[in-house]
């Protein structure tokens, strides 16, 4: 595959140690190049990743500790990209959880080479991204908001939400409606009516 022209810093740095790793074959949508780095993958100025296959870890449990030690406390975010390729992974994962706490690494699990490659690509491409995507809702259209609002109480679905506002005209009327009035809407059974009226009137704060 022809790679786009390289400019320094925009490609994933790969340690020559990783030669032969099937993950490299799956790295398709980001450029990568071999480079002499401490970690296995360099994903930015402050981010790096170590690759660990659990199969290998079981045979050589000390390997990963050496590698972590060799990082010498460099990098702010140190990913331990762990490939789950054995069925009885429990023991190893338990141990790694403890390790992550002690040695300041963040464990990311993946289940295939393709997924591992995707993680690497994502880390590299989000190097300078902002966090808006996980900071909460972006505004959407009224209809979507409405459906989202009305479907919070259990058992009320999309069609019910539409029926609700189409009967009452506006949300405010729907909220102020008596249970009797709501139950007339087609599709609104007893349980839905009860849930809706309860939630709408329920105090935000739990009374002590």
């Amino acid at each position: 595959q022809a790679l786009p022209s390289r400019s320094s810093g925009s490609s994933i740095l790969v340690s020559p140690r990783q030669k032969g790793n099937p993950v490299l074959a799956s790295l398709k949508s980001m450029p990568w190049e071999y480079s002499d780095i401490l970690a296995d993958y360099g994903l930015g100025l402050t981010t790096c990743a170590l690759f660990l296959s659990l199969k290998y870890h079981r045979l050589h449990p000390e390997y990963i500790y050496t590698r972590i030690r060799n990082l010498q406390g460099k990098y702010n975010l140190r990913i331990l990209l762990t490939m789950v390729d054995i069925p009885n992974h429990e023991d190893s994962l338990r141990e790694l959880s403890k390790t992550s706490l002690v040695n300041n690494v963040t464990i990311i699990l993946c289940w295939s080479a393709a997924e591992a490659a995707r993680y690497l690509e994502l880390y590299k491409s989000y190097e300078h991204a902002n966090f808006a995507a996980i900071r909460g809702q972006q505004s959407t259209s009224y209809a979507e908001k409405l459906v989202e609002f009305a479907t919070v109480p259990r058992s009320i679905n999309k069609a019910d939400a539409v029926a609700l506002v189409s009967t009452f005209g506006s949300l405010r009327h729907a909220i102020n409606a008596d249970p009797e009035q709501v139950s007339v809407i087609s599709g609104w059974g007893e349980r839905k009516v009860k849930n809706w009226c309860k939630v709408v009137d329920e105090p935000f704060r739990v009374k002590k």
Partner: protein
Amino acid sequence: MSAATASAPQPVKLSLPLVYQQKLFEELRNEDELVILARGLGLIRLATNLLHSYDAAGNNLIVIVGAEDRENAWIGEALAEHAAISMTPKARGLTVVNTDFTSVSQREKMYAAGGIFSITSRILVVDLLTNLIIPESITGMILLHADRCVATSLEAFILRIYRQKNKAGFLKAFSDNPDPFTIGFSPLATMMRNLFLRKASLWPRFHMHVAQALEGKKKAEVIELEVPMTDAMKEIQTAIMECVEVSIHELKKGNTGLEMDDWNLDSALLKNFDVMVRRQLDPNWHRVSWKTKQIVGDLTVLRGMLQSIVSLDAVSFLQQLDTIHAAHSPPPGSTRQTQSPWLFLDAAQTIFDTAKKRVYSSNQKAGPDSNIDSLRPVLEEQPKWALLAEVLGEIDRDLYFEPAVRDDSNGTILIMCSDTNTCRQLRDYLQTMHVRPRTEKRIEEFHDPEGDKPSGAFMMRRKLRNYLRWKGEFAHVSATLFSENQKALSGAVDPRLAQSKSRAPANKRRRVRGGGNAGAAPGRLENGSIGQFFEKPSEVAELMAEIQITEEEAKQKDDVIADPLEDMDDYYQMYEMQDLVVIHAYEGDQDEHVLEEVKPKYIIMYEPDASFIRRVEVYRSSHNDRNVRVYFLYYGGSVEEQRYLSTVRREKDAFTRLIKERASMSLVMTTDAQGVEDPQEAFLRTVNTRIAGGGRLAATAEPPRVVVDVREFRSSLPSLLHGRSMVVVPCMLTVGDYILSPEICVERKSISDLISSFKDGRLYSQAESMFQHYKSPMLLIEFDQNKSFTLEPFADLSGSMASVSAANAGANDLQSKIVLLTLAFPKLRIIWSSSPYETAEIFERLKTKSPEPDPIAAVRAGLDNDTLAEEQAFNTEPREMLAVVPGVTPKNISNLTLATESIKEVANMTTEELAPLVGKEAARKMHGFFNKDLIDES
């Protein structure tokens, strides 16, 4: 009520007239056991009698676990009644402890005083752990819905705490649902272990004592009436079935890796088919494609339609279809991939067309020069209505010609149906069935007896008027809601306008099906989905005129939708029970009560319900002097009938299997002297090899302690931590879910939690606040025991450049969000756990060699200094709703919830009132959201 003397310490009066009930009661008084009783045989009555016998003795503390609100109400009532009848001074009745309305100190006092308590499981477990209710002081526990008590459930946790500390107290478990006991490997034995019980007592309908009691001389008279469905109904049912079939096929195609041999049309009729599909998909729910999720949703909708076709009248059914259609029509610019597949089928077209034809159809007006066709109301009636009227007539004659032998029952006719909506429909029908809407002047026919045949015409016409009015408004509403759709629709949906010039008028209204130009058959959108159908205003006007209110109709009083009961005093008076028709909906155990109160002579079961038949049997057998005749209506060859038959069969099968398993069950002694073995002991306990020689090194040290947020008790993890002999300290935490040490704070997320909390940004702010108060915050991503331990989606990962580019940072998959989270919080550690069992082990390991957490500090973390802990507790649902409202941000929501009471209050506030709380711009947005009027606008 007949009395039976019991071997209770004090003679009390019981209301258990039948032999099997008395036998069961004796059994329960003598030993601890699990009772599985066929539905309808009076489980609650048994429980209340048992409770009463303890209540009457006084000086006790009895806890009811697992009761629902309705059951609580009934148990309370029954206990009071019993106490009054047997005049026991010591009986104190039932105290219900639910949602956090009673304060801690109050609860403590109440528990100390004793009596019978029904406590919500979540509160009970916290109270037990904090020793608010002292396990040793409990006289006994009654567990209802024992079928829900799986190993990791809260109820099992409660029983374990109880049994660990209290070996003398009694424990009786009840269930009227044998189904769950037959799933899995030796389910009954497992369940018995969870319940710490050794004896199971099974009481199916075919049990000898039950059969004897119910099939004696006093058998109820049952008349079955099979009603054929109309052709239109059959056609719609077949079409829906076809849609179901195609949806199932799509599901199979999209999820090849899964076990789904029993996904077929037959099982699709079962009551719990969608639940079953969901359960099978559940292990992979976080991996299935968007489309699969949509189809699973569709199946629920389609099955709902199958139900509605028999229960709703033609007009309401059409109205429901309209709503379903509007809600499921594709968003603008979508391609076929993003839509419900069934909407593309011809069968879907049939559903909508036929449903419409049941209400109105077009015919050509007589007249040589007029080639405008008009709409005529058809208004097909439900076949059951006529039959119902007939049955009522028969009962009438019956009463007249052979005045009943005086007996204890009232002459009341009780009509039972499935829900309140059907109740309302039947009431309307019965009220108006003799009102004639005379559209044509047929005075000569006025006294024709045929003319007095009951019909629902009046009601249907009224419904149609309402429907047309509604449809007009609905056009507006969906225009505003789905305005983009509408643009597409105006081009494609009204093909009649465009085509009328070229086409012969006679053909105009006939929809082309199958034929026509391939992609753009009339009534379909450009992308092939079915378009919403709106009539031309002129046609509607004509139709309206056709069903003008006639004189007779005008005489009838207005339809009362909601009776505010304002002038209660003026109108209120007692009806004579002798000549009443009572319409009631099935309500589970409550129905027994209805029978006892109404004492009906005739019962019409408008819809089949297996357990109600048994209730009638029990009722009839319990009373020597009350005759009852039951009419039982069902649609032949309908889904309704099949469903009824299969529930009966399934219950029988379940009991048979249970009996077999019980016969071959090897029982482990669970309540032996050595102490209680945990249900998951084998799984949880591993030998700690680090303690050489088996010496108890940690004997002198403090037992390991974990501070757990009280909200977390919904999950099974606290129970498992407790099972690993850690001390679980329940607290109201603001930051984190589990505090393992003064430094380690864990936020637990199941996969679905994780997805939703990424979506609303909750996780981001939770992580922020954890970092403010703890040195080592951790995110626990916990998979379910039975779910596959992978995040890899079924879809292939041939990620293109676009899917990972930074510009596309809003990408939707979980992986990219996890990446963003770790980039935002490089010090946040992630624990991946394949099951709650694993989590418990990981916690244990993380805790080793670190100091124990301080509950008080944990509670204080994240609280403002001036607000009390109490005020920080929120009800989740209203808060979640509020969070969705535009203008509300994670920042101003706490302000808002502190200053206002409920959603209702917020919705009714003006912009000026809101502004000081959230700011001007946000206030405007919020006010706009609540007050946007969909009918007058646009």
